[in-house]
C-alpha cells in the first residue's frame, strides 16, 4: 500500500487532519490555504459526492503543480452546477468542452503548452461517468493510446444525474434508473452489461491508472499527487455517491462510498503500465446488503417483493473483486 505508513496519532491517518501531525504530514484538505478549486455557492445538491471529490482531487493537483494547472471539464453535473452563466465556482483556469471531447481538448491544451515551452503547466481533464465511459470514450481511448500528457479524472456516480438519472455504462447491475426496467423478473439495470473503465484504461498500458473513493481522502490525495508527478496519459477513477440519483441521505455520502469499498464492490487499487501495483485492503468487511440497503435505487431488491437471488449475485461480484484484487488481508479474512 502506497500512501502513509501507519503512525498512531490518535486517529491515525484516517481523518482529514490532526493537530498532532507535522504540517508536511497533513492532507491538502486540512490546509487553511488549500486552493478551494470549487468555491462556495455552487449549485450541487446537498451532500454531493462529486462536488466534494472534485475539490479533493483538483486541490491536490493544484498543490502538486504549485498552482500551474489548467482543468478541462466535459459537460455533466460538475460543469452544470459549477458554472451557470455568468457565474463560476472554479478558482483554477478552467475550460468547458462539449460532452464527448474533453480528452481531445486536454490533449490540445497540453500540446499548446509544450509548443509554448510552458513545461511547468499541467493539464487535468475531468468528466462524469457518462462523459467518460459512454460519450467521450473514443476521445479518451485516443488520448490513452497516444500517451498524451494529461491526467484524466472520472467522477463516477454511476448514471447521468443532471438530466434525470439515466443509465450509463457505469451503472451497476440491479440499480434502478429512469431508463432501466422498472418491473419484471429482474428489475433495474441488467447483469452482465456495462464497462469497467479502470481495466480498459489499464489495457492501454498507460503509465498510471488508479481508483479511489471520496471516503478515503488520504488515499485519493496520494494518488492524485503521484499521478501529477508522472507524465503521459494517466487515469483516476473516483467513486462519488450521488444522494439524488441513488436515493441516499445527504449526510450518508461518505459512508456509502466507504461501504462500497469495504464490501468489495468497488476495488480501490493502483496500476502502472497495465499491472496492479497496490490495493487498499478492506479494513472491516461488510456484506453487500449493508451497502445496498440505504440506497433507494436498490430498494426493489428488498421489501415486500424481495430479490435475494439478485442480492447474492451482487455479493458474488464483490467476492470476485476480493479474489481478483486480493482485497482482504490474510488475518482479516
Amino acid at each position, binding site marked *: 500500500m502506497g500512501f502513509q505508513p501507519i503512525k498512531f496519532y490518535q486517529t*491515525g491517518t484516517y*481523518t482529514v487532519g*490532526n*493537530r*498532532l501531525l507535522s504540517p508536511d504530514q497533513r492532507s491538502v*484538505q486540512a490546509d487553511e490555504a488549500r486552493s478551494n478549486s470549487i*468555491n*462556495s455557492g455552487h449549485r450541487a445538491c446537498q*451532500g*454531493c459526492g462529486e462536488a466534494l471529490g472534485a475539490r479533493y482531487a483538483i486541490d491536490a493537483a493544484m498543490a502538486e503543480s504549485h498552482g500551474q494547472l489548467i482543468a478541462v471539464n466535459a459537460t455533466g453535473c460538475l460543469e452544470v452546477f459549477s458554472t451557470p452563466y455568468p457565474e463560476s465556482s472554479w478558482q483554477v483556469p478552467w475550460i468547458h468542452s462539449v460532452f464527448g471531447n474533453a480528452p481531445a481538448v486536454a490533449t490540445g491544451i497540453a500540446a499548446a503548452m509544450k509548443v509554448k515551452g510552458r513545461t511547468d503547466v499541467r493539464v487535468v481533464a475531468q468528466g462524469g461517468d457518462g462523459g467518460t465511459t459512454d460519450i467521450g470514450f473514443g476521445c479518451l481511448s485516443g488520448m490513452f493510446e497516444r500517451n498524451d500528457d494529461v491526467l484524466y479524472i472520472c467522477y463516477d456516480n454511476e448514471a447521468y444525474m443532471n438530466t434525470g438519472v439515466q443509465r450509463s455504462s457505469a451503472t451497476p447491475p440491479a440499480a434502478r434508473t429512469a431508463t432501466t426496467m422498472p418491473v419484471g423478473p429482474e428489475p433495474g439495470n441488467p447483469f452482465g452489461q456495462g464497462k469497467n473503465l479502470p481495466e480498459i484504461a489499464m489495457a492501454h498500458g498507460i503509465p498510471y491508472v488508479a481508483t479511489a473513493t471520496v471516503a478515503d481522502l488520504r488515499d485519493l490525495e496520494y494518488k492524485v499527487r503521484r499521478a501529477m508527478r508522472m507524465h503521459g496519459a494517466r487515469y483516476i477513477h473516483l467513486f462519488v455517491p450521488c444522494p439524488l440519483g441513488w436515493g441516499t441521505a445527504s449526510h450518508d455520502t461518505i459512508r456509502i462510498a466507504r461501504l462500497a469499498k469495504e464490501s468489495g464492490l468497488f476495488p480501490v487499487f493502483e496500476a502502472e503500465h497495465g499491472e496492479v501495483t497496490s490495493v487498499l485492503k478492506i479494513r472491516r468487511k461488510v456484506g453487500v446488503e449493508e451497502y445496498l440497503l440505504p440506497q433507494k435505487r436498490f430498494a426493489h431488491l428488498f421489501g415486500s417483493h424481495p430479490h435475494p437471488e439478485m442480492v447474492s449475485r451482487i455479493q458474488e461480484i464483490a467476492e470476485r473483486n476480493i479474489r481478483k484484487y486480493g482485497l482482504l488481508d490474510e488475518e482479516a479474512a
Partner: protein
Amino acid sequence: MIKPFAITLKPGTSLSNLTGTWRTERPVYLDRLPPCNNACPAGENIQGWLYHAESGDYEQAWRVLVEENPFPAVMGRVCYHPCEDQCNRGKLDSAVGINSVERFLGDEAIRRGWKFSKSADASGKKVLIVGAGPSGLSAAYHLARMGHEVEIQEAGPMAGGMMRFGIPKYRLPRDVLDAEVRRILDLGVRLKLNSRVDDIVQGMQGFDAAFLAVGAHIARRAFIPAGDAAHVVDAVSLLQSMEGEEKPMLGRRVVVYGGGNTAIDVARTARRLGATDAIIVYRRTRERMPAHDFEIEEALQEGVMIRWLSAIRQADEGQLTVEKMVLDEKGMPVPTGEFETMEADTLVLALGQDVDLALLEGVPNLEIRNGTVQVSGNMMTGYPGLFAGGDMVPSERNVTVAAGHGKKAARHIDAYLRGVSYEPHAKHELADFGKLNTWYYSDADKTVRPMLDIIRRQTSFDEVQGGLDETNALFEARRCMSCGNCFECDNCYGVCPDNAVIKLGPGRRFKFNYDYCKGCGLCAAECPCGAIKMVPEEI
C-alpha cells in the same frame, strides 16, 4: 460592437449565490460530556487532561488534572477507575488506560517537582478540617487554593487516613503518598497530628466553618463464639499495625472472613508476611463478592485461596468450625446445617467498618442514620457551618469518592463563607458511543502495565503493578477518542462539499459559514467524536 446576449454579462463568482437558504437543518458545534468524566467520582476532566497529554505537554495535563484532584499518583494506583468501565473505546477494542496515564502524570510531577499554581488572594476566613484522609486533604487543598486558611486536625500519628492505614504498601508505596500530601501542605495548610477532636462544636470555635472527614475506622464484628486461646483480630487494626515498627504475628495458616476489598488486602498482606496458606472465607459466591474482580484475580495469582459459600461458626485454638451455605433465589446465603472444621492459626475479621461518631455527641440538629452522618446536597450537616464527607457520610467508600467529597464540600464551604450558594454548571449531554464515528480511529490495543514477578509478589511488599514510561504513556493517551469534544481533526473542514466550514487556526477550532452551508449533515456524520449536532432551522 453589438455582442450576442450570451456574452454580454461579465464573469461572476458563485459566491453571489447564497446556498445557505436551502438549508432545513443547521450544524452546530457543541461539547458533549465524555462518559469517563461523567463516571469519575472525583469529577476529573479526564478527556481534558488527556488532550494535553496527547501532545506530550505532560505538565499542562497534570495541571488540568489537579484542578479537580490533588492525588494523581495515588489515584493512578488505587482508584478503581470507573472511568475505564464507561470508556467508549471499550466498545471498540479496549478502554483507554486512563488510570495508567494518570499514574504516569502523577509520578512525572513528583519526579520533576511540579508545584500547584498560585492560590487565590487570602479571604481571611478560617476552616477546620477534622481528619487527614483523602477527603480531608482534598478539601484542604481546594479550600487553600481558594484563599482560605486551613487547619487539619488528625487523631493519628501520620497523614493519609485509609490511604496509609488501609491500603497496603504493595499497592501504594508510601513515598508516593508522602510526596502528594507534602505538596498539599506546601500550600500553607496547617496539619496537627495526634490531635483528636472530642467535641466538634467546641473545636469549631475560632473557625468560620468545619469539614468533618474522620472516615470509618471501627471494625464491624460478627458474633463468633471463640475459645480462650483462639487468635482473632480485625482487619482494620491489622492493616494499621503494618505501618508500625512491629509487624503483626499471624502464623502459617491465616483465615480471613469477609468478601470485600479489605479481605483481599489482608489475605495478600498475610502471604507477604510469610503465611503459607491465606484463605478467604466468604458466605456467597465469586459473582456476588463485593471485592473488585481484578483484585480477586491478583490475589489468586499470589496463591490466596478462597472458600466460597461458607460461614464461620466457632473459633478455637488452631481450628475453626465452618458451616456450608447455599444461596436462596434472592442470592442470600442460607445455612445448610453441614459443618466442617478447618485449621487456622489466626482468624482475621474483615466484615466492614463503622464510623466513630463520638465527637458528634450533643451537636444540635444533626441527623445520624445507619451509623452515618446525613448531609444535604451541599455536604452540610444540619448544624450550620459544619460539613461532612468521605466514609462517614452515606456513599460508596473508596479513595476516589472521598477525594470527590472533599472537592465538592470545599466548593460549598467557599460559597457558604462568601454568603452565596454554589451552583454547579449544568452537565452537557452525554457523548455516548452512538454519537461517535469510530471509523476514523486507528486500531490500537491497550498498553498493559507490567506486573511484578509472582515470587516477589508473594514475599515482598514491593509495588505489584508497574507504571508506563513516556513512550507508551503517550501512546495510551492518544488512544483517547476525545468523545464529545472537538480535537481539531479537520474532518468537518475537509468533508464539507460547500467549503462552508471555516478553520480558525490551532486551538481555536472551527465555525460554520451559514451563508453557504446547505445543511447536508456530512460534517456531523463524519465528525469522529460527536462534537457537531444538526438542529432544525426555524422555518
